[in-house]
């Protein structure tokens, strides 16, 4: 029978915390950039200009059709070369974190754009029409009247997607970047305590994500009340 031994965890906590900071950094950047770019994509998709809406539809269905792992591998391959060419960086610069952020932001934007599109469509037409009748330009009406309401209506879904995104950041493992999971794996591998470290990592993710989902559910109930 396997003897569980948790003694390597306390000493590894600072290293794991470094990893957690990387996970959170990627999550926050990807949420911000993803919602921003996703909203633009949603606007393009709903725009009367056919070329724009086709372009956005193509982007969204492309990113929704391929696995996140594959997208990340592409970005770890392409982005460093691209950035080095454009910015003239040396080969020693570690661009894995930047690549991960760009990859997650562009990938999640496809999912955020679907949420924002539904959000924009959930705002009644009269709102936009009233804003136009008041003399606002279409973009003003969108920015000042429709989008704030769309954002508010979709906030629970945006937050739920953020929790999924946080879980997905563990996939930067494919680039050997030491995010929280990568750090846990490395420590476990080094100390021959992979079993304990994996269970510990799972427990940490579980506590964070279920607390966050619980908060979102409560928030959603308050919003509905």
């Amino acid at each position, binding site marked *: *029978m*396997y003897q*569980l031994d948790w003694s390597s965890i306390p000493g590894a906590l600072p290293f794991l915390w470094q990893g957690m900071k990387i996970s959170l950094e990627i999550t926050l950047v990807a949420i911000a950039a993803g919602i921003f770019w996703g909203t633009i994509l949603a606007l393009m998709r709903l725009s009367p200009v056919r070329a724009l809406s086709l372009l956005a539809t193509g982007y969204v269905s*492309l990113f929704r*059709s*391929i*696995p*996140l*792992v*594959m997208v990340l*591998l*592409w970005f770890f*391959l392409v982005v460093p*070369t691209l950035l080095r060419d454009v910015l003239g960086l040396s080969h020693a610069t570690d661009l894995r974190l930047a690549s991960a952020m760009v990859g997650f932001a562009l990938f999640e934007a496809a999912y955020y754009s679907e949420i924002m599109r539904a959000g924009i469509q959930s705002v009644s037409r009269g709102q936009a029409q009233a804003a136009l009748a008041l003399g606002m330009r279409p973009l003003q009406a969108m920015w000042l009247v429709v989008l704030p309401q769309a954002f508010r209506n979709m906030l629970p879904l945006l937050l739920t997607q953020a929790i999924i995104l946080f*879980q*997905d950041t*563990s*996939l930067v*493992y*494919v680039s050997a970047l030491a995010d929280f*999971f990568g750090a846990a*794996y490395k420590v476990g591998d080094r100390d021959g305590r*992979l*079993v304990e470290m*994996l*269970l510990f*990592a*799972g427990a940490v*993710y*579980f506590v964070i*994500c*279920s607390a966050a*989902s619980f908060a979102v559910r409560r928030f959603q109930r308050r919003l509905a009340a």
Partner: protein
Amino acid sequence: MGPLDFHVFLQPVPTGETTYLGWLLQGLRTTVLLSACAWAVALVLGSLLGVFRTVPSRALRAIAGAYVEVFRNVPLLVQLFIWYFVVPEIVPGGERFKQIDPWLQQFLASMFCLGLFTAARVCEQVRAGIESLARGQRNAALALGLTLPQTYRHVLLPMAGRIIVPPLTSETLNVFKNSAVCSTIGLLELTAQGRQLVDYTARAYESFLAVTVLYLLLNAAVLLIMRKVEARTRVPGYLGSGR
């Protein structure tokens, strides 16, 4: 980067028994087989759990609720590593598991991981489907003297099962996409074959392009099949149910 050169796919692999294209197709086959098996596990377990979430018994509801909570709040990658590295160590009989063919070990761990992960999502869809039915259906069936299992078997599940086909389409697509995560434990499915190709041929762009196109085709094929299923199972008068 130089110009793309796809001739590399027709060259034989170092062991000589197939070409690099053959490797990719083997990977595709593993991806399809794995996803199909995992999907079967998810459907069976997910339906059962979904029913549990709607029965009067508080204990069963709590079990299914806890299951969903756990499997939804731990990243898929972590779950996969736990199935592959942890479970065989701490579960009795794990020693025998570690003696079987490595490919089968990877495949079984991936299948159960992906299946059990997806079951939590299927469970929520089944629950939503059952709850979307008018309360009168359950009450009428019970009033007619059907037992609870009979009510589920003959009244609730036949309707709910058809209503939730459209949301299950996106879950089906998710299974195929999520199967790429299994490349991390060394299972040679499509993504892993793509990475192996990069290692052997140093043709990163061509390899990733080919893998991406294969995923797109796979996605389109699954979507096409599911649209057929949706058309056949649509409940007349239940327009746009689910999405």
